[in-house]
């Protein structure tokens, strides 16, 4: 792959992928945020993914591949903003990819699309229904984005489309919900619940995204990290002391706190620390031959910036 368009390049994960990729390919970043500390050989176009100018980037550079990770997760943004940015942005990127002869589209989705539930099998495969929105309607757009890529896969057999659904991404600089949660010194846990969780280090996700560019690779893949641990073991490893809160109390309390902006997690996120949402990553490990480079311990400790 000579030229790769990377959307969402200014995010933490975007920068990780850019740094892994820029020595072997010409990277063109698209992000409405500025790219701080950009290496000189990376082009960056600071524009909203929904804008017309995005098409210009494709027309000018004629990229061979697109890595699309310009997807917003911030629960504080309004529903409309989320939906519009994620869905319309993804549509625009896919449309340009089809129009300008891109050969490969790699799209970052998430294992969260399956959603935590007491009825889940311990390891969900790629064929499992995407149920996340049934208990947490605000994540509808993330499922829709995943489905858009799915539809694109079938409508454009000439393009190799890869959808990656990694488990909870953690890392020193990562500011997503799981990393922030694990950094809490006195986190809430649901009293009597200790679900198994799967984590993956940012750099391992980056490597997976780059590996997905390999010609011939296409399809939907769950991407897992070094394994599964009880949530309590994660906090023990980090030396944090959780506060057990009865689940019947936790939801109403958190929803009030969230409403008045005293908490940064919407109450539905509690499902993730109460029920299982684990995936089977066998398809990806077999086909890519890629193993995570960080051990479980290193992955957990990475949130501390070690």
């Amino acid at each position: 792959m000579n030229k790769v368009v990377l959307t969402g390049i200014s995010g933490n994960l975007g920068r990780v992928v850019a740094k892994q990729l820029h020595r072997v390919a010409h990277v063109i970043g698209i992000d409405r945020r500025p790219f701080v500390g950009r290496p000189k050989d990376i082009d960056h176009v600071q524009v909203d993914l929904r804008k017309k100018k995005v098409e210009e980037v494709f027309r000018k550079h004629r990229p061979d591949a697109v890595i699309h990770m310009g997807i917003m997760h911030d629960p504080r943004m309004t529903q409309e903003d989320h939906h519009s940015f994620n869905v319309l942005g993804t549509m625009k990127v896919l449309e340009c990819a089809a129009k300008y002869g891109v050969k490969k589209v790699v799209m970052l989705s998430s294992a969260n699309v399956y959603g935590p539930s007491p009825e889940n099998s311990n390891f969900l495969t790629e064929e499992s229904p995407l149920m996340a929105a049934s208990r947490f309607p605000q994540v509808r757009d993330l499922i829709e984005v995943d489905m858009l890529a799915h539809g694109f896969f079938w409508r454009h057999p000439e393009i190799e489309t890869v959808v990656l659904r990694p488990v909870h991404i953690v890392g020193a600089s990562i500011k997503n919900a799981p990393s922030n949660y694990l950094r809490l010194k006195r986190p809430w846990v649901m009293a009597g619940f200790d679900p198994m969780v799967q984590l993956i280090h940012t750099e391992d996700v980056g490597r997976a995204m780059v590996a997905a560019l390999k010609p011939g690779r296409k399809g939907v893949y769950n991407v897992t990290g070094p394994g599964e641990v009880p949530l309590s073991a994660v906090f023990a490893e980090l030396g944090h002391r959780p506060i057990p809160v009865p689940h019947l109390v936790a939801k109403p309390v958190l929803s009030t706190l969230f409403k008045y902006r005293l908490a940064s997690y919407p109450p539905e996120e509690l499902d993730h620390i109460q029920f299982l949402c684990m995936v089977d990553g066998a398809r990806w490990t077999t086909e890519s031959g890629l193993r995570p480079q960080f051990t479980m311990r290193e992955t957990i400790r990475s949130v501390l910036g070690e």
Partner: protein
Amino acid sequence: MTCARVNGRLSNLVKQGLKQWTRSMAGEDLDARLSGSRPRNEYGVDPFGFSLDYALSAIGPFLWLYKNYFRCETFGIEKVPPGRVLLVSNHSGQLPVDGVMIGVAMLTEAKAPRAIRSMVEKWVPTLPWVSTFFARVGQIVGTPENCRRLLEKDEAILVFPEGMKGISKLYPQRYQLQEFGLGFMRLALETNTPIVPVAVIGGEEQAPAIVNVKPLAKLLGFPVMPLTPYGPPLPLPVKYRLHFGDPIYFTGRADDEDVELEKKVKVVKAAIQSMIEHGLKERKAVFW
């Protein structure tokens, strides 16, 4: 802060004590004989959340019940083949003591001890503490995907095809097998797994329920709420007898029509029924 630390030390002491207790009842070498049976990561758990350390502590009280309260006896446990296997048993007693007894028997009485799994109801993961306890001792939610995955890993899985209908049957229906589900047979055919029929004698008298109070069950969010003459369905000290049958090997298509599967399921059901009748004839009394 000190309170939490004392608390932590206390629970650690309890855990160590329980583990010692288990060892004193089951033999010091139990850990060693079991330790190779499942993969363990650096945090002491297998991918499904089973923890040998936790299980050895947790099993103490149940082992005591097994030996002293229910005075469990096993027959033919050596017939359980190594490798993947489905143990299919009758189900009764309001509380799943039968599952616990079979689990303890496989752990302590089998020549090659095995930590078996059973498939639990989907409401178990919604229960605090219970959900964690079940996961750490290796019990998981009964979805076909879970079962298939574990059989492919050559595990031993205990299934109660009567399900909720079996465990909640009332006293007059004791030892009458309820309708069997077909799911276990499909999985056995698909994964080429032998089936060992198991008859549990004793459990069906442990909590002689006479009525199922449906409104109360609904109120508490329980699937059923049976009551005995003495109130809650607490198990009486009946004597447990576990009869293990010869493994049955089935061949055929896993996606066959229900009628075809029903025929095979009938074979298993008949085997259990005849073992139950034999077991009932053999025993002298319910309580000894």
